[in-house]
């Protein structure tokens, strides 16, 4: 124990002198997590909380356009801004260029009239098919006048399609309602009562949405819940710059050689490095999580909610940290120069992070990359953290994701021993 304590003390002292290493291990991830979370937060807010602003230029003064605008409003995903000041298409486009809104819609002047005419035609056809004599309204020879939707090109394709789908639903609702009214009027020669209209238009089938999380509760995804664990993992693996470089320095300085001539096993040195840097990775997690909990709300970012299973979170942090430390030692043992350790170490972590889904979600990757993703230890680390932070799981729920991390760590340790023997360092 005396030797181990002395070795750990030495490792901490060396670490404390490595100012650049400390800045890279603590400063850089803290900056990254704040910057990236801030950037992604606006996207998450747009998707989760903020309504999409839509400028509506209603050139129609009829009832149907008002009903259509009401229907759009009831969808719940739009913040409607009506504009009658200017009715020129060029002005709409100008306002869009000025980023006033992501969407704009122009309702043509005779929208109500044409929609009602089309409804009368549909009603007449329906009555005719029942063997009843309906109103012989003739279809409008100019055809229905389309609504025009303007959108910012930056709008994601999937989001634009969702918006179009929602607008079509509103349009369908208004048209169906008008057809129903026309049929009722043709049969009863009086206006359909509001209560009946409401009950007829009401959906009889409801959609039951169930979140598939471990605890059965809906966890609204936000930038903090996504980014804090991801960049914590990145920070942990970035210890490669300090630890990998430190091992190379030790090899090159001759300290390594001297240690081999002393009556102690080199495994003690490895154990000490692992314990020292495991403390570092745990400290990184504590600092980054603390920033998510206490600093984020002050800078307008969502507060990080810790998982209910704090014990599980601690175990996952240790397991991920051990994997990161094993990787760093492996790089240090095989690198010949400090430049190699730092360069390859940093580069490989960025690549493994990208492949592991830390930068772009795994489900958004091509199929081939999704297969390659399984090889990145950072992917499995992210999976375990996601299980706790996003899916409300406990250690018992996510242990299958821990197994590959442990396997990778043991494999890396074996490679380290092999490398040390191959290079005649032990």
């Amino acid at each position, binding site marked *: 124990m005396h030797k181990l304590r*002395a070795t750990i003390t030495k490792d901490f*002292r060396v670490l404390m002198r490595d100012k650049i290493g400390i800045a890279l291990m603590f400063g850089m991830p803290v900056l990254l997590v704040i910057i990236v979370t801030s950037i992604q937060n606006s996207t998450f807010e747009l998707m989760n909380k903020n309504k999409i602003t839509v400028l509506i230029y209603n050139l129609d003064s009829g009832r149907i356009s008002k009903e259509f605008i009401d229907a759009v409003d009831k969808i719940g995903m739009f913040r409607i801004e009506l504009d009658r000041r200017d009715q020129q298409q060029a002005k709409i486009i100008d306002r869009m260029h000025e980023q006033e809104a992501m969407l704009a819609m122009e309702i043509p002047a005779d929208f109500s009239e044409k929609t009602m005419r089309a409804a009368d035609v549909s009603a007449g056809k329906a009555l005719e098919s029942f063997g009843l004599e309906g109103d012989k309204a003739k279809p409008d020879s100019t055809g229905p006048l389309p609504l025009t939707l303007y959108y910012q090109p930056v709008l994601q394709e999937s989001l634009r399609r969702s918006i179009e789908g929602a607008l079509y639903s509103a349009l369908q609702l208004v048209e169906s309602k008008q057809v129903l009214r026309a049929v009722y009027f043709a049969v009863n020669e009086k206006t359909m009562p509001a209560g009946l209209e409401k009950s007829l238009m009401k959906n009889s089938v409801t959609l039951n949405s169930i979140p598939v999380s471990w605890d059965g509760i809906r966890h609204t995804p936000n930038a903090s819940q996504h980014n804090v664990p991801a960049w914590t993992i990145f920070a942990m693996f970035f210890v490669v710059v300090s630890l990998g470089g430190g091992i190379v320095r030790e090899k090159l300085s001759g300290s390594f*050689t001297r240690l*081999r001539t*002393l009556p102690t096993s080199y495994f003690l040195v490895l154990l000490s490095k692992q314990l020292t840097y495991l403390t570092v990775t745990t400290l990184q997690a504590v600092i980054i999580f603390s920033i998510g909990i206490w600093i984020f709300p002050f800078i307008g970012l969502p507060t990080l909610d810790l998982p209910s299973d704090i014990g599980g979170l601690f175990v996952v942090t240790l397991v991920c940290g051990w994997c990161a430390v094993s990787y760093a030692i492996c790089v240090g043992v095989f690198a010949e120069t400090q430049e190699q350790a730092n360069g390859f170490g940093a580069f490989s972590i960025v690549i493994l992070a990208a492949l592991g889904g830390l930068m772009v979600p795994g489900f958004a990757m091509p199929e081939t990359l999704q297969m390659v993703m399984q090889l990145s230890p950072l992917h499995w680390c992210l999976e375990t953290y996601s299980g706790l932070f996003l899916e409300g799981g406990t250690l018992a729920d996510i242990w299958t994701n821990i197994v590959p991390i442990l396997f990778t760590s043991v494999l890396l340790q074996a490679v380290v021993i092999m490398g040390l023997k191959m290079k005649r360092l032990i």
Partner: protein
Amino acid sequence: MTAAISIRDLSFDYPGSVSPFFSHFNLEISKGERFGLFGPNGAGKTTLMNLMTGLLTAKSGSILLEGLEIKNNHNAINKLFGLVPQELSFYQELTPVQNLEFFGAYSGLSTSEIKTRTDELLTILDLNDVRHKALEKLSGGMKRRVNLAIGVIHRPSLLFLDEPTVGVDVQTRFAIVEYLKALNMDGTTLVYTSHQLSEAEGLCNKIAMIDEGKIVAHDDLQALLSKHEQIGLEGLFINLTKPDA
């Protein structure tokens, strides 16, 4: 009396080499000697020292340190000897005290022993004023003295010194040599190699000249000088290691 070092029928070659570096090599160094190992560059001095300290493994033959075969007694052997390598083998980021604390513990000393030895060595080697300064900020001579202090912190009975004074000024060299003589007086066997032949002449009482993995001379320094009619080690070195020697 047990020899400090006994090398018998040693063979060694580096991987990929055509001919063996050492073949059936024999050498005996007695306890209490100040033994100098000399030879031109590439003669095999450092290789031999690495074999004697277990950093390299012999292909065949045996090396015994104070009667213990190095192959099978790693821990016991490593307690016996100290090594002062040519490279400055310590943590430059740490202070002399912090380095001695670590290497002392790693050599098996207790906390109190480390403290006593650290104070003793820093005083003897005149490093007290810089005991809490990071080594990277110290002069070359001071670093050499710390390199030596680490090698002797556990009071080894056998000390290997590979160019212990390379790159230092005359005063530091003198201080180191005087300290080594004092250690030897206390019973430490010294095995020393250097290109500083004038320094070696003042330190060693027995020498071996090796060239191309073979011993070309091995005797008391004075006996060798008389035999080869030389007045100094430099002349002897040139005489014994010249191409037609």
